[in-house]
């Protein structure tokens, strides 16, 4: 019983980074931006969170700083893909590499690595405030995309930028906004990871969670509620690893640590086999838009 209770209690904290990152990805991808930079935005947020905590900021301020750091990297990404119209894949990869290098450089420069920080305190049922806020953030994302004029513009830009342009929507501006807003959420996900979960910085602390979130979005077919469910699923898997290790059961530790990645691969295969993604995926995902293109 103890095992199950401990496991259940630790699931939300593991699920939240996936969920927040997935929401951020959904916002930018709905605007037609193939966002492979998630791992990098999370790293930026994760480091900002740690740095602010070490500087003595309260946890919520650290989280806000993490979101800002994510947004700052998002701005760079937006300049590359929406401004300069560089290939989305190479831009995303470049940013992941750049973030990895930059965070590791800053952490080394300020000696933040391996410094334990205080964390986010639980408010109810052993869970912290962000856990409770996450469903509402999900709701807000759904509302933004489905109920607001800005959301309509985002979806139009992601489906048919030419039509959006003809309707007087500034495609570039909408993509900038969607990328930065999305990156802020992804940065927040990274900040939550260090401030609330690991409570420490080591280089590459995000450990592929950004990539898992990308797969999660495909799995969820760009739908926030399904992404939340998927995040819970991955939270379950991740939360299981330390629990099993704690029981002292004779399970090879490193094989256990592979499971989130293998599960992600399985989920991607499943999503592709189902084959209906073509309907859910924004039609103009990864495409640039130039008004004066001659056809």
């Amino acid at each position, binding site marked *: 019983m103890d095992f199950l209770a401990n496991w259940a209690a630790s699931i939300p904290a593991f699920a939240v980074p996936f969920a927040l990152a997935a929401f951020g990805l959904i916002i930018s991808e709905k605007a037609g931006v193939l966002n492979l930079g998630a791992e990098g935005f999370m790293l930026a947020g994760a480091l900002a969170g740690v740095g602010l905590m070490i500087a003595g900021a309260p946890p919520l301020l650290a989280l806000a700083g993490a979101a800002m750091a994510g947004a700052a990297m998002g701005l760079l990404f937006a300049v590359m893909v929406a401004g300069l119209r560089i290939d989305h894949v190479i831009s995303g990869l470049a940013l992941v590499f750049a973030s990895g290098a930059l965070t590791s450089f800053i952490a080394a420069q300020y000696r933040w690595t391996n410094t334990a920080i205080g964390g986010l305190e639980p408010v109810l049922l052993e869970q912290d405030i962000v856990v409770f806020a996450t469903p509402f953030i999900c709701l807000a994302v759904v509302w933004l995309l489905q109920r607001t*004029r800005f959301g*309509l*513009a985002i*979806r*139009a830009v992601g*489906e*048919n930028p*030419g*039509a*959006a*342009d*003809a*309707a*007087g*929507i500034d495609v570039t501006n909408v993509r900038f906004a969607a990328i930065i807003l999305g990156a802020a959420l992804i940065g927040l996900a990274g900040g939550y990871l260090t401030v609330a979960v690991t409570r420490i910085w080591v280089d590459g602390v995000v450990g592929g969670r950004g990539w898992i979130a990308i797969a999660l979005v495909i799995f969820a077919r760009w739908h926030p509620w399904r992404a939340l469910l998927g995040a819970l699923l991955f939270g379950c898997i991740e939360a299981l690893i330390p629990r099993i290790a704690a029981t002292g059961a004779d399970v090879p530790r490193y094989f256990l640590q592979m499971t989130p990645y293998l599960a992600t691969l399985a989920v991607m295969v499943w999503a592709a086999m189902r084959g209906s993604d073509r309907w859910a995926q924004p*039609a103009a995902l990864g495409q640039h838009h130039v*008004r*004066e293109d*001659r*056809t």
Partner: protein
Amino acid sequence: MAAALALKDVTKVFGGFRALDRISFSATAGEVHALLGENGAGKSTLMNIASGIYTPDEGHIEIDGTPVVLKGARDAALRGVGMVHQHFKLVRSFSVLDNLRLFNPQTAPSALSDRAKSLAAQMGFNIDLARTVGTLGVAEQQRVEILKVLVAGAQIVILDEPTAVLSDEEGNALMALVRSLADAGNAVVLVTHKLNEALFHSDRITVIRSGRKIVGTIPSETDAKRLTTDIVGEYLVEEPALSAAAGSVRLGLVEVQQPGSDGRKGLRGASFNARGGEIYGVAGVAGNGQDELADVLSGMAAPEAGKIEIAGAGDVAADGPDARRRHGVATIPVDRYRQGLAGGMSVADNLAVRGALAGRYGGWSRFDRRAARKRAAELVESFEIQGVRSLGQRSALLSGGNAQKLVLAREFEGDPSIVVAHSPTRGLDVRASAAVHGRLRKARDRGAAVVVISEDLDEIMLLSDRIGVLSGGRITAEFSAPADRAAIGQAMVGHD
């Protein structure tokens, strides 16, 4: 009285190419003004400027006599200029109402809905605003486009090649709508390359050619022959030339089924035979299975059911494009830049691929570039591909007509016995079209079975020795040339 819309001395240059050269054009309330010219003459560019999509390099726009600077399509619509594009600017996954909302963000949805309903009623257009646009037929989508600009307050409506995607019957209905829009006090600009639309449905005609205005006239003062001369620059009319002798069946389709993409119906049991030495024309309204037919014939898609028989090879339905080609099939794809050319590669490299695969330039470990270049030079010469400054030039730089000639030159390497051409002259000017048609006839006269799929009934009538009508994914009627156009038109819209 000032013209509702006037463009004054407009010039537009694209990367050194003068698409428009000091053109003036005007449209008055209550009239239908036809803007006539062949593909590439600059009609669409001019109207894109009128509707705020492009900014003119020189010259300006006046609306009701007042000079304006248009900041975009919506800005233009708010000032009264609405453009209905040939390729609709609609978000397919959105509802009709969401598309209207997108274009009219300032209006409250309920007010918008009321306004749209009353305008749709005036148009005689019965539409459920909650329908997803992608599920609508082409003619309905076009009406949504018209509704969209009217809701925004357009009083100058520009229709860019509106009948290109419609059946004859739908086209006639549209022309009636166009007239009623003009009668209601709107100015309508009808951009077209079809003479009859200008002659029978407009009040004024302006002809442009190579970015220059050639003539402004009215229908009663001109005729088809004079307009043709104005459009092309000379009197050039292609005459049909029927096959001398059709041979035995080369290609046969038996009950072929293939689901369409984007929720279209696709092929539902299409059957026909094409014989050597004949051009078999597949007529039909867009979206009745043309793309799927081209795909299963070229081997790009394996049909879900049915047989594709090639004389001497049996059923090849499961074979991919490489195996089809070994059976003598050549393919001229609908989208020559996307499926016909490797745009980033040189003209020589594009021309060499069939020869390379046939082993003419060495085995797998060798590619004799010099021999390939030599052969490419011969092909450029014999197919009269113009605009090739060097064989190393990137093929994406070729104009539509020359790009198509390049595709033909490559596809006709090795004298194919079956040729499948999908809309081979789409977007080409008259001269280039005639050249492409000449090549197809030549292949036929050599004894090949030529299948031409085209949504342009004029082209089908001009080329075909036999005509099959593709409707709802099946060949519903067959005609031998010379065929009755009205009967074919009837068969195209007849539903089973």
